[in-house]
């Protein structure tokens, strides 16, 4: 297996693992809070119908949790074997949040998980309710630490590169934890999980109404699911806006790819709908789109909070735009090569124990460290991510997000003010929106991760340099085995869930 194929297989394997892992995670994040709300209503009203409702959704939550738990473990294996350069280079910055996640959040989640399931008749209702809330908080805390680590990869701050150890050392824990990118990423990701949880609840409730079964249960679930969904989908829009703002500040190439923006402009519009021209190349005069609908000024406003702001296009960011203070990628490549040479010289000086030379080369390295990763590229165009995949994933995610707001509002209105059971098309729409929620969430991840290519760590480490296949096993074979295992798990989850849903809330657990 040559080096390129090894990198590509490592990437494919990581993408597969992350995509499958993220099929299980969002439902846990969202459903845990919905269950906690339902149980709160039960404790507040002492209405046992609410207890049945809570227990039904709790059963589905357990299925998803049990099948999804530890699927993320594989990614840690992959870091160690397939991404050894990366795992070493990030040092404790990546390790610390993951360790906190493992010890604190997962421990809290797991402990109270037992009370949630075994404790209905063993502990008081208020303690049980507290446990349910703590499971929800614990799940979300787990997500927080993971997303802090991911946020650092998108916007590395709070560290200092040590050329002697080849590791980044944390200088300020709080800069890492409260990085604006990490916070925006956390809020946007967990709120997407809340929306998926709400879609799941209203979709299954709609199915019961279509089957004319468990009508009271379904309508009550709909009220909670649609209210929670409406609030969280509105919040998802706000957190998405903040996320895009952070991308504009720290990953402008990703923003340009998300919008298919080749030539930068002031008062830039956002593409509401567009079909990219597949023949368009950087620097040519071909039009970016075969057809598009643009909302004027919106990209400048969303990206920079100013309708007059200039938004750099791919050509400005690759070839530079002096008028707007944008350096070319070639300038950064040259700077990065100076950093790489300085690291090499530092290493040679260290081998000869020449401390003066070490100091000199380290000073040069640190002066060019912000461009370090660019030193691995030969051509400026290499900094551009896959445009079509970033653009379409982003637009699919946003369009579906808008649809979910409308769906939740309609479901809530018809449940509270009309007879929702007579609204068959709406009920079918709710049912079929369950997979759409997952598509939107996965599309969001593709935007975040494909959009930041070619970087594993923004500006510091390209993906091809992060990969190091240490293992003797065949990655293609382990990729196929992963695909088999995860697909089997997904089929098992769907089958068990469908069986449990068919039994209904009065079927026991």
């Amino acid at each position, binding site marked *: 297996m040559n080096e390129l194929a090894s990198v590509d297989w490592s990437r494919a394997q990581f993408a597969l693992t992350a995509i499958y892992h993220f099929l299980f995670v969002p439902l846990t994040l969202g459903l845990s809070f919905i269950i906690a709300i339902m149980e709160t209503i039960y404790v507040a009203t002492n209405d046992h119908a609410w207890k049945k409702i809570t227990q039904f959704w709790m059963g589905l939550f357990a299925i998803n949790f049990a099948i999804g*738990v530890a699927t993320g473990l594989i990614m840690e*294996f992959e870091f160690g074997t397939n991404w*050894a350069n990366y795992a070493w280079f990030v040092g404790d910055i990546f390790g610390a949040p993951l360790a906190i996640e493992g010890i604190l959040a997962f421990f809290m989640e797991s402990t109270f998980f*037992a009370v949630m399931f075994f404790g209905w008749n063993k502990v008081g209702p208020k303690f049980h309710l507290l446990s349910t809330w703590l499971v929800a908080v614990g799940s979300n805390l787990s997500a927080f630490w993971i997303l802090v680590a991911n946020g650092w990869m998108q916007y590395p701050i709070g560290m200092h590169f040590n050329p002697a150890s080849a590791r980044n050392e944390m200088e300020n824990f709080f800069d890492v934890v409260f990085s604006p990118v990490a916070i925006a990423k956390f809020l946007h990701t967990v709120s997407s999980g809340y929306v998926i949880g709400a879609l799941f609840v209203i979709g299954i409730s709609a199915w019961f109404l279509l089957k004319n079964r468990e009508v009271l249960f379904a309508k009550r679930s709909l009220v909670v699911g649609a209210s929670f969904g409406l609030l969280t989908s509105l919040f998802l829009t706000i957190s998405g806006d903040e996320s895009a703002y952070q991308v504009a500040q720290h990953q402008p190439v990703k923003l340009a790819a998300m919008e298919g923006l080749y030539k930068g402009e002031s008062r830039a519009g956002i593409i509401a709908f567009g079909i990219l021209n597949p023949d368009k190349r950087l620097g040519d005069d071909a039009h970016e789109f075969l057809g598009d609908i643009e909302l004027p000024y919106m990209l400048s406003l969303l990206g920079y909070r100013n309708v007059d702001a200039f938004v750099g296009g791919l050509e400005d960011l690759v070839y530079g735009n002096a008028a707007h203070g944008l350096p070319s990628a070639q300038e950064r490549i040259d700077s990065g090569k100076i950093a790489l040479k300085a690291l*090499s010289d530092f290493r040679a000086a260290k081998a000869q124990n020449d401390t003066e030379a070490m100091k000199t080369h380290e000073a040069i390295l640190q002066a060019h460290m912000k461009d370090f990763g660019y030193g691995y590229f030969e051509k400026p165009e290499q900094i551009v991510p896959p445009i079509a995949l970033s653009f379409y994933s982003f637009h699919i995610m946003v369009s579906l997000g808008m649809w979910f707001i409308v769906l939740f509002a309609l479901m809530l209105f018809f449940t509270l003010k009309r007879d929702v059971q007579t609204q068959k098309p709406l009920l079918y729409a709710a049912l079929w929106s369950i997979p759409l929620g997952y598509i939107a969430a996965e599309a969001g991840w593709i935007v975040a991760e494909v959009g930041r290519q070619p970087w594993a760590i923004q500006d510091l480490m390209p993906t091809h340099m992060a990969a190091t296949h240490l293992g003797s*096993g065949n990655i293609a074979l382990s990729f196929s085995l*992963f695909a088999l295992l995860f697909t089997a798990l997904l089929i098992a989850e769907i089958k068990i869930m469908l069986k449990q849903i068919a039994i209904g809330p009065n079927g026991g657990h």
Partner: protein
Amino acid sequence: MRLLLWVFHFYKDGFMHLSLGKTLWKILFVKLLIMVVVFKLFFFSTTLNTRFSNDDERSDFVLENLTKEKK
């Protein structure tokens, strides 16, 4: 001591009265077995920690990778 006994019985009763949970635990067990034994042992057994005995060697390996000239 009473608390510990209570916790023991809490978990014991909980596990004894599993219905759907039994299937889920079986799936969880098989999944972990495949991940930790098969994948870890056959595909992900080698890391910088297993390949090198100290941090200096690990740093050196990564520095070599980071600074090697492109062919």
